[in-house]
């Protein structure tokens, strides 16, 4: 079946702003949006896009599909019988066509020190019970696709906001029984661009392709931040 799709095109050397261009693709029952984009790239090799695994693991093919952030590989053309408009992820600077500059997102990620911080220099493995694993496991499923940042109006309004994925990752390590780095991460979460910049719009959790529920993590971070503040009042 032939299907018309519109793709936002932007060539930094020629255009002052992105514009929509329409293409014809052959769509079958199993054709994903990423498949459709790759078909277009066959017709017009100048189309730029990021992709890799085609199975919702690498998190690189995030685009706006009819204005909603989604992974191209996990979205099917058949679900869009009317119009299908594909544009680059919102709230990020557009480098070319569907490629955005993810560096603000990556900087926020590294700012929360998303790795195990543990002073113990032991060669023995750190044992963890299933209950200790369950505390953070859901938040560990993030694939860093950045869809939650495109869904977040607070990040759109204030790019300094650490944002859903980074705060989720901070929570993921703070809740890990093997980690001792909470004290190093809390100043970031407590800051004005930390958890308190979130107003629980909750759209980040709606669009998350891995059901991580970043909105829950951010708002659990508010509880952690508040208790951190109260404890600090009573400790010299």
């Amino acid at each position: 079946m032939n299907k018309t799709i519109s793709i936002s095109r932007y060539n930094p050397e020629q255009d002052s702003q992105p514009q929509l261009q329409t293409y014809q693709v052959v769509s079958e029952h199993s054709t994903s949006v990423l498949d459709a984009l790759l078909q277009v790239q066959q017709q017009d090799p100048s189309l730029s896009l990021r992709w890799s695994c085609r199975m919702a693991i690498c998190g690189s093919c995030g685009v706006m599909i009819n204005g909603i952030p989604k992974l191209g590989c996990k979205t099917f053309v058949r679900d869009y019988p009317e119009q299908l408009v594909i544009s680059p992820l919102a709230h990020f600077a557009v480098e070319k066509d569907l490629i955005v500059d993810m560096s603000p997102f990556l900087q926020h990620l590294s700012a929360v020190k998303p790795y195990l911080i543990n002073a113990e220099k032991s060669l023995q493995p750190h044992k963890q019970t299933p209950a200790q694993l369950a505390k953070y496991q859901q938040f560990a499923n993030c694939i860093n696709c950045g869809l939650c940042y495109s869904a977040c109006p607070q990040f759109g309004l204030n790019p300094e906001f650490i944002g859903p994925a980074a705060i989720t990752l901070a929570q993921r390590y703070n809740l890990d029984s093997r980690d001792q780095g909470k004290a190093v991460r809390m100043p970031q979460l407590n800051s004005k661009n930390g958890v308190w910049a979130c107003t629980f719009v909750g759209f980040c959790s709606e669009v998350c392709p891995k059901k991580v529920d970043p909105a829950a993590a951010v708002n659990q971070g508010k509880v952690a931040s508040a208790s951190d503040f109260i404890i600090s009042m009573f400790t010299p």
Partner: protein
Amino acid sequence: MPDPKSASTAYKPVMSRHWWLQHRYFQLYMLREATVLPLLFFIICLLYGLFSLSQGEVQWQSWLTFMATPWVVLLNLLAFSASLYHAKTFFELFPRVMPLAPAALMIVAQWLATFIVAAGLILLLGGWL
């Protein structure tokens, strides 16, 4: 901070002031936040009532008449439905922030607690008045 190499050529999208009109999810979010407006009116009514009570019977009676005015009743009905909507959203979000029990159970428990407290207050105040 954006990558300096691309900073000059990249297109920087500007967020429209009407961003919240673009999607139903955002509209419902704004509705949730806007529930504070009719509630603010109700709180002013309540404070005015307390003040009237302290000013004696004439002022109290005039407050009662004011509260029975159609537009005041209408605004307070709006405040009531807004608070119910806000409660619904709050009760759904709370189990995600404090996952103490399965979410569905917590939502039911919160509504039950609300109805029990509300019914208790109505009975208590009804008996007292």
